[in-house]
């Protein structure tokens, strides 16, 4: 397989060799760990029948043999044997922080696309109201749902769990809610590791970064949660009074709506860094992203980050990083 999957950038001959070398290095680093744990569909998975085992996800039984039903890596946790898939759609777990897009405003709920096999549901009741007061939702609230989230809005929420007909989300904290002034990126979910912290405020660049467990990543201008509430309040008020239009904004409001050029550039830089990493199929963590962003500072133009040279550089850097990490480890 000469070509790497998904990579559509034309490379020069030297770049090709450099990339190849970097990738080979990566391969050699990881191969010792668990190369023969990779399986494809219908491969049999060796198990210790005496000890007893539990078949987990991605396995089934054929003629007394455990076989994989998906491509991936065999994982064993105590007696549980399962296949961890790569490249699959998002599998929600309770407590995951996800970023999603509103598909539909339905009675008392929003339907949100979170890259799962079904749309997720965010109930109006699982949502903190703009006024911040805990109370029963009234018919008025229901009518005003669109003032909170509209179709195509990007929102951030937490997986609450499965309830009768589908996946439920909740957004009962200030940090959840609508995301504005930024970019939504979609990367394969397996590249995002579940960690303690998924919200990152990078003060240096004045941006927020949300690594949704579902592979949706938000990069946007930093927003103060408290302020947001105020804006929302104000927006609500103004909504009720008169339809605000761009031209009727007050100077102050325009000031707020305006994102400084530098911030916008930083958003783009970060987004591009994530794009490069995901094309190369590297895990996307805050450290690597920031490292890549730093690397990109040497470039004249931000769009060069999507060029071939930068891609090769990132690959080389990653190879180096992992090998040094290994040595340390």
């Amino acid at each position: 397989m000469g070509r790497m999957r998904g990579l559509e950038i034309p490379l020069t001959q030297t770049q090709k060799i450099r990339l190849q070398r970097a990738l080979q290095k990566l391969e050699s680093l990881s191969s010792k760990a668990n190369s023969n744990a990779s399986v494809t569909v219908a491969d049999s998975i060796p198990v210790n029948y005496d000890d007893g085992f539990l078949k987990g996800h991605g396995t089934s039984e054929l003629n007394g043999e455990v076989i994989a039903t998906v491509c991936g890596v065999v994982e064993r946790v105590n007696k549980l044997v399962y296949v961890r898939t790569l490249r699959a759609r998002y599998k929600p777990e309770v407590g995951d922080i996800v970023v999603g897009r509103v598909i539909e405003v339905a009675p008392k709920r929003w339907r949100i696309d979170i890259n799962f096999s079904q749309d997720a549901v965010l109930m109006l009741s699982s949502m903190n109201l703009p006024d911040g007061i805990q109370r029963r939702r009234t018919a008025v609230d229901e009518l005003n749902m669109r003032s909170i989230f509209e179709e195509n809005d990007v929102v951030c929420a937490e997986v609450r769990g499965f309830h009768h007909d589908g996946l439920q989300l909740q957004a009962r904290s200030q940090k959840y809610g609508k995301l504005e002034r930024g970019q939504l990126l979609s990367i394969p979910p397996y590249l995002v590791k579940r960690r303690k912290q998924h919200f990152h405020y990078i003060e240096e660049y004045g941006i927020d970064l949300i690594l949704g467990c579902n592979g949706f990543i938000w990069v946007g201008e930093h927003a103060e949660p408290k302020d947001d509430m105020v804006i929302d309040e104000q927006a609500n008020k103004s909504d009720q009074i008169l339809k605000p239009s761009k031209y009727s904004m007050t100077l102050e409001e325009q000031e707020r709506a305006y994102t400084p050029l530098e911030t916008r550039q930083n958003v783009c830089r970060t987004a591009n860094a994530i794009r490069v990493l995901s094309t190369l199929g590297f895990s996307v963590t805050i450290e690597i992203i920031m490292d890549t962003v730093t690397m990109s500072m040497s470039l004249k133009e931000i769009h060069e980050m999507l060029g071939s040279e930068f891609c090769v550089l990132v690959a080389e850097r990653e190879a180096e990083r992992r090998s040094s990490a290994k040595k340390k480890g």
Partner: protein
Amino acid sequence: MEYVSPEGLRIDGRRPMEMRKLHAEMGVVAKADGSAVFVMGNTKVIAAVYGPREVQNRSQQMSDQALVRCEYSMANFSTGDRMRKGKGDRRSTEISLVVRQTMEACILTHLMPRSQIDIYVQVLQADGGTRCACINAATLALADAAIPMRDLVTSCSAGYLNSTPLLDLNYVEDSAGGPDVTVGILPKMDKVTLLQMDSKLPIDTFDNVMQLAIEGCKAVATYIREVLLENTKQLEYHRGV
């Protein structure tokens, strides 16, 4: 017409039991959940899989299993003469159905209730055996999308011309009008899931031809397995720990 020369070579230089050159690539459509290109000689098919995702038409939603849909089309430039082909012609509808039924039989649909899986296959170059290439491409794309399957499905055709069983007919041989057997198998389970034939054959010859097609399917399976494993490993080591 002489399809096998007395020297035992076919028109394109293959021997009767030989397959055309195989090539496959995965992850060719960025937006899709899974995708692949499958090439058999000059036949080239691209497949993209979307899903499992929310069922578009709620009335079709099934509470115990996933809905599998398939759409087959042929690119206008896929054949020698550039013809604008309508979407819903009989051939397309038939192949869509064949691919859908074949794939549905191996997808563990009960694991993905209330969802929908869309398979789009498009012929980029047609040179005989498009049906088989479509099935092989769809298998790869489904595996790429990590949709759980009982087994891979692989397919290959075989024909009977000049009193010789021929593996993997190309367009010239296909249009000779002789018997043409298309077989799809589940290689691990050793089961036949698809069997189609044009024209007719006496039963004992049919056995030979079908056996040859099955051998072809197995060879395809070996190749597809290699491609999948390589792909999985690559993904894994790129990702890092």
